[in-house]
């Protein structure tokens, strides 16, 4: 029996084993481990307790303050400072400060720090995003990060893999976000618990990288250990461009694919050629329905950004909808490009101007409102449409507020109409 791409990557990094099977507990070497301003302080505290005078490898760790940044209050500033001090003390070069930083799951691929075939752990649940590069990338806790910074290893239980096959050409305004919302509506928020989700099929082959990142980003919302897409020419083009531009210390990689006779615990097929844009209603990411089923859902705030949909093609799509239109007078539109580079490109391409002229605000990269941090919190009774990834109770602010998840085009159209809307209605 052959191996899936996830099994292959785990095996090639595993210590002291020659074969693996789902259910096995293994220890494996990591190519990169990272954390943000919320999760790294605990990791750093635990690391320091070991009393080691150096980290396992200064180039294979990244520390990215992105959640409560720019520092929203004293205590957030102190937490971010913990990262800065530790990075300086231990010579960690991949520390990203304001002015060059970004939301971690957009910044790291952009910088060529994650490569096909890599085994990556991050102290953030959306680490699964990087599976779009054909890497095994999974979210872990702060203590796992501390252990990895010390020893360059992590323990894993080998997951079974569920294969999701997507067929058909997406309609206009339908992208990776809609495909994943549709899949999670099908399998549920625990439908893939402890499993690997492998996205494949002709639709995936057609998807640009930004859409692939969106899909893998939300694998965790089905409970998955990781989401992954086999690397192909699209992946290679993206990775080579990043390596050329940023010249990171690690340049070589070994792209792998699933064997033809690999075993899957479940295989599901979706023909998406007639799929409409999907919207997930409060309070579960699995509560997704076609956008046409939402009539007269009044909206107070629209957020376009996050590690799910804050990339340049997301902003391009939103700007195309908003150009020469005005944001509804009852709506606050908050646009947050995911990295400094995307921020600059959005200015150069005129997207920023489109947002601002429409009456929206264009902000510095941050996770901000996605987790109810800052830069757009909801008060009691308020409703938001967001291109983010979670809509649990209280996610974006007051426990009695409501978040609908969508793609950037739906979010932009909703900002104009003042209610959940499709661009065709404008």
């Amino acid at each position, binding site marked *: 029996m052959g191996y899936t791409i996830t099994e292959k990557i785990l095996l090639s990094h595993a*210590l*002291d*084993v020659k074969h693996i099977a789902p*259910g*096995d*507990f*293994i*220890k494996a070497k990591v190519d990169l481990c990272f954390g943000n301003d*919320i*999760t790294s*302080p*605990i990791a750093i*505290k*635990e690391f320091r*307790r*070991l009393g080691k005078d150096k980290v396992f490898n200064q180039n294979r760790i990244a520390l990215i303050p992105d*959640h*409560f940044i720019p520092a929203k*209050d004293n*205590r*957030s500033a102190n*937490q971010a400072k913990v990262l800065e001090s530790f990075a300086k003390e231990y010579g960690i070069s991949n520390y990203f400060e304001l002015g060059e930083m970004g939301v971690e799951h957009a910044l790291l691929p952009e910088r060529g720090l994650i490569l096909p075939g890599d085994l990556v752990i991050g*102290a*953030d*649940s959306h*680490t699964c995003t990087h599976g779009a590069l054909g890497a095994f990338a999974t*979210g*872990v*806790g*702060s*203590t*796992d990060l*501390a*252990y990895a910074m*010390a*020893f360059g290893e992590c*323990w894993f239980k080998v997951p079974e893999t569920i294969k999701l096959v997507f067929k058909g050409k997406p309609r206009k305004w339908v992208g990776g976000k809609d495909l994943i919302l549709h899949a999670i509506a099908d399998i549920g*928020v*625990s439908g893939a*618990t*402890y499993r690997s989700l492998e996205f494949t099929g002709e639709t995936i082959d057609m998807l640009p990288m930004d859409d692939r990142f969106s899909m893998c980003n939300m694998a*965790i919302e089905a*409970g998955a*250990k990781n989401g992954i897409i086999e690397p192909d020419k699209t992946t290679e083009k993206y990775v080579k461009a990043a390596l050329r531009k940023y010249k990171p210390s690690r340049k070589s990689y070994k792209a792998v694919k699933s064997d033809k006779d690999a075993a899957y615990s479940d295989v599901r097929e979706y023909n998406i050629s007639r799929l409409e844009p999907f919207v997930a209603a409060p309070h*579960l990411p699995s509560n997704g329905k076609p956008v046409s089923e939402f009539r007269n859902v009044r909206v107070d705030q629209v957020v376009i950004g996050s590690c799910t949909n804050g990339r340049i093609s997301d902003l391009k799509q939103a700007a195309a909808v908003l150009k020469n239109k005005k944001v509804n007078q009852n709506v606050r539109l908050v646009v947050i490009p995911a990295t400094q580079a995307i921020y600059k490109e959005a200015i150069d391409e005129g997207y920023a101007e489109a947002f601002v002229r429409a009456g929206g605000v264009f902000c510095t990269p941050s996770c901000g409102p996605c*987790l*109810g*941090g800052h830069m757009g919190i909801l008060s009691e009774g308020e409703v938001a449409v967001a291109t983010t990834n*979670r809509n*649990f*109770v*209280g*996610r974006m602010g007051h*426990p009695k507020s409501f978040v609908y998840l969508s793609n950037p085009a739906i979010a932009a159209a909703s900002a104009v109409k003042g209610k959940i809307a499709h661009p065709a209605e404008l």
Partner: protein
Amino acid sequence: MKIKGKVHKFGDNINTDEIIPARYLYTIDPGELAEHCMEDADPRFASRVNEGDIIVAGENFGCGSSREHAPISIKGAGVSCVIAGSFARIFYRNAINTGLPIFTSPEAVKNLKKGDTAVVNITKGEISKSGRKTVYKAEVFPGFIKEIIKGGGLMAYAAKMEQGKASQSRKTAGAGKSKKTKGGKAAVKKKKAGKKGKK
């Protein structure tokens, strides 16, 4: 080793935003986090919970974010263990790594009600209601995961490993070798890793 505690019951999909909302993630102090434990699932939990109490919940407990603040706040509130129908995977590993005992047992969840006194045999993974004979079995942890939990968490386990390596090197040095060789250290590490790699 046995735990005995009062049951606080919760439903399915209790997520980490409910266990410890983002507005409290400005601190890593267990005491401060404990004050807001389970706040968006039950605003009165933190004031009602007593040392040794047990959380019993449905499926997919701890889904959502990777925030380790979740098990830290639960432990900080004095909760002795969490029994659930199933756990979300990042919460599962965070609980193990921080030494919060967790048990997967849909049968126990079905039969334990709010206010019951539950008894948990940690070593055997057996759960029962105080005074009753029926025993519900929880999923048993394999191999080195048991050692991590026994040791009080991942970093305690790591510290023990480091101590073991250091004393091995001292023994080797004492036996006549003049310096710690890289090969010698690696050989010890490999031997220990091989032991823990078995299921």
